[in-house]
């Protein structure tokens, strides 16, 4: 040991005069790193209460607690975090489909009471609620926002064929898509029939298709129809829809039902035969009528179903083009009715006398006659030859092509080479346009009063129409129709500008005066809505069950003002879609036994 070695360490005494490294007391609560994961924050208004955070938590730290009323698109639950469990892994943030959950950068919480470390972020006010630092996700997500793409016929070729446009999922695709489901059940609130959506998607994911269709049949006797053409409000509220694409609930239902050629072997009903000896007459073979007939038949009721057209299906038969909903699919569902023992009377329009007879011979009568009257466009020259209503057009077309009915005109309304204009923006307008195209129309134009984003038709339908080279003229208000000297029709329209008259309401189209545009076509199809038509009933009966416009009012059991007469479907609800009609039917399925005192 040299002297230098012994003395050198004393040099460290110089440190005694240097500034200490210690953080001063006043700065001790340092701000952490920007992405430090501290206490939870939640935007309680954006949160939808899907419970994904609770499901993924490995420590079972998150409870869903009742915070507000459940609405469509919000379960009314909000996550409550137990900090006696949390380990700040932020899986809950990364999996949050609404992106509302986050972690602030606050990290200090000291208390003598162990019960306080539990709160509902965003609801129980905390000092760190507005902290923008911390971890708020967004850089990556644990959930898959993109749905498995659906394969379709290419747009340029399908205009020449009646083949189904949508090709359907393969098994692998369906399971992959089903695996995206978060199983929160928010969709069931938006579905009018409140179907068991997460359950059957789970069954599809597990490859248990038989269970899946059984779950579907719990509340829907026309799942293949719904799987193809449902308005699918469920997908609008899907938790995935907040930040990405919703789960393809419709395509999954279609996939499950298409797995089986004959569902009669698969569906296992297990209900008490409470209706043995009771007779129910169903007027109208649309979705609501089929629903009532099927579920009452499996309960032992003797059901007579009267349909004016040669085939069942109602609006789903004559309103929906077969490239969307082919006849075999419809036949499959009708077979289920036959299997359940429903007596089908097709080509049997009901008139006032038969109605009275049905009332006297049956314990209950259900009216699901639908909206059979197309609304007029109310423009000058509407009664010119070549101007047809979309409903008439589609009905005539479907009867001609899919039945042996003789109630058809000599030649189709739209002939090859014609130029067709469709007035309207709903699904019916799109259907009429696409059918016209397939009938050989050289050019099809859709003319709509508002903007494209205001169109009530499905955005998928609009896209499909555009892919098929259908022209869409928007903000076009029809003024009058004139006949040109060469026998064609001139649709004169004026441009509209959108005026928002009150906040929140959708803007109204207002005609720009003085400008007139001409659209010269061979056929004009008006598709601006449908209305009820109860003229087949006696005036007294009409007055008892319906208001002066023909809409039927029913009570919570689906019963009209006339005892024993129930109603449902488009005549009753204004949404005018198949799933609402099915929901009406389900209401009556409960209402009739209750009215008959069978429960």
């Amino acid at each position, binding site marked *: 040991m040299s002297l230098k070695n012994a003395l050198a360490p004393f040099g460290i005494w110089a440190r005694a005069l240097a500034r200490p490294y210690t953080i001063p007391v006043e700065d001790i609560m340092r701000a952490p790193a920007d992405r430090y994961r501290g206490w939870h924050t939640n935007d309680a208004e954006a949160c939808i*209460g*899907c*419970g994904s955070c*609770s499901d993924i938590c490995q420590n079972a730290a998150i*409870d*869903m*607690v*009742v915070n507000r*009323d*459940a609405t469509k698109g919000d*379960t*009314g*639950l909000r996550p*409550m975090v*137990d900090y*006696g469990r949390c380990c700040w892994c932020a899986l809950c943030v990364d999996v949050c489909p609404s992106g509302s959950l986050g972690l602030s950068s606050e990290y200090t919480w000291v208390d003598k009471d*162990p*019960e306080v470390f*539990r709160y509902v972020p965003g609801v129980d006010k905390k000092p760190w609620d507005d902290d923008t630092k911390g971890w708020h996700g967004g850089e990556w997500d644990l959930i898959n926002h993109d749905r498995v793409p659906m394969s379709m016929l290419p747009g340029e070729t399908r205009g020449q064929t009646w083949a189904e446009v949508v090709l359907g999922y393969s098994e692998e695709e369906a399971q992959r898509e089903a695996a995206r489901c978060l*199983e*929160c*059940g*928010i969709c*069931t*609130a938006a579905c009018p029939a*409140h179907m*068991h959506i*997460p359950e059957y998607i789970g069954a599809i994911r597990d490859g248990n298709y038989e269970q899946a269709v*059984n779950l579907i*049949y*719990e*509340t829907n006797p026309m799942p293949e129809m719904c799987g193809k053409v449902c308005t699918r409000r469920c997908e609008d509220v899907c938790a995935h829809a907040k930040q990405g694409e919703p789960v393809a609930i419709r395509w999954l239902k279609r996939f499950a039902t298409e797995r089986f050629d004959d569902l009669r072997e698969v*569906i*296992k*009903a*297990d*209900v*008490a035969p409470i209706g043995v000896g009771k007779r129910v007459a169903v007027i109208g073979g649309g979705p609501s009528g089929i629903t009532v007939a099927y*579920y009452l038949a*499996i309960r032992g009721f003797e059901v007579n179903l009267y349909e004016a057209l040669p085939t069942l299906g109602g609006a789903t038969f004559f309103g929906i083009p077969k490239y969307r909903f082919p006849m075999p699919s419809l036949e499959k569902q009708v077979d289920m009715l036959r299997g359940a023992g429903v007596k089908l009377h097709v080509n049997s329009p009901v008139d006032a006398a038969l109605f009275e007879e049905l009332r006297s011979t049956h314990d209950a009568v259900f009216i699901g006659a639908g909206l059979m009257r197309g609304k007029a466009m109310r423009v000058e020259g509407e009664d010119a030859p070549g101007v047809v209503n979309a409903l008439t057009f589609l009905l005539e077309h479907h009867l001609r092509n899919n039945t042996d009915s003789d109630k058809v005109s000599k030649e189709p309304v739209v002939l090859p080479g014609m130029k067709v204009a469709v007035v309207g923006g709903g699904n019916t307008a799109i259907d009429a346009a696409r059918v016209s195209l397939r009938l050989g129309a050289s050019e099809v134009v859709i003319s709509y009063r508002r903007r494209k984003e205001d169109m009530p038709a499905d955005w998928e339908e609009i896209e499909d129409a555009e892919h098929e080279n259908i022209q869409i003229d928007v903000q076009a208000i029809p003024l009058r129709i004139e006949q040109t000297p060469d026998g064609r029709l001139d649709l004169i329209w004026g441009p509209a500008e959108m005026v928002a008259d009150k906040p929140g309401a959708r803007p109204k189209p207002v005609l720009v005066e003085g400008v007139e545009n001409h659209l010269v076509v061979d056929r004009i199809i008006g598709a601006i809505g449908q209305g009820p038509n109860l003229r087949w009933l006696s005036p007294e009966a009409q007055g008892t069950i319906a208001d002066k416009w023909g809409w039927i009012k029913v009570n919570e059991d689906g019963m009209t003002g006339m005892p024993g007469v129930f109603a449902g479907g488009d005549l009753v609800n204004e949404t005018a879609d198949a799933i609402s009609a099915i929901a009406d039917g*389900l209401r009556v*399925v*409960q209402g009739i036994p209750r009215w008959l005192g069978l429960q």
Partner: protein
Amino acid sequence: MNEFVQEIQARFEVLWSNPQRPDLMQIGVRQVNALPLLTWLKSNTGYFILNHFSAVDWIEDGEFQLTYLLTDYAARRSLMVCVRIDRAAPTAESVHHLWPEAVTYEQEMFEMFGISFPGSPRQGVDLLLEGWEDIPPMRRDFDTAAFAEEAFGFRPGRTHTNPRDRVAIAFGQKGFLHDH
């Protein structure tokens, strides 16, 4: 590694072999052959280090698997010797005379799986679980969460509502194919 397995096969019956990595081979042997094989490996080959010794519960087969991980540090290769033993009466021969460090593994396995190694010095002496009365906790038929709740309890005052149930109740979800 395959030649080495052939060499073992020449002496002992190798039930199966499974190369996991270029430097890691897994072989399965019968229980009667286990101790002779390990003794031979320890004394006659480079695999004289017992790196790890553990058990796997194959509850479906009614067996435990004992896994001896031996390493040849000179050759930088490892050999996993797997032995299946009966789950109903789990007993295996102790290797503490070959590797003193095996005592702790054997003590732990007795405690966590209930596998007994007769002759192992600290057999039955508590290592981690003092006064354990239930079935050994690493067995797969032991329900940890249920045990934790029963034995320790969780802080009361928490309620959870399943979102699906809440929606179903709020909107009156029903089924019409079955009577519920």
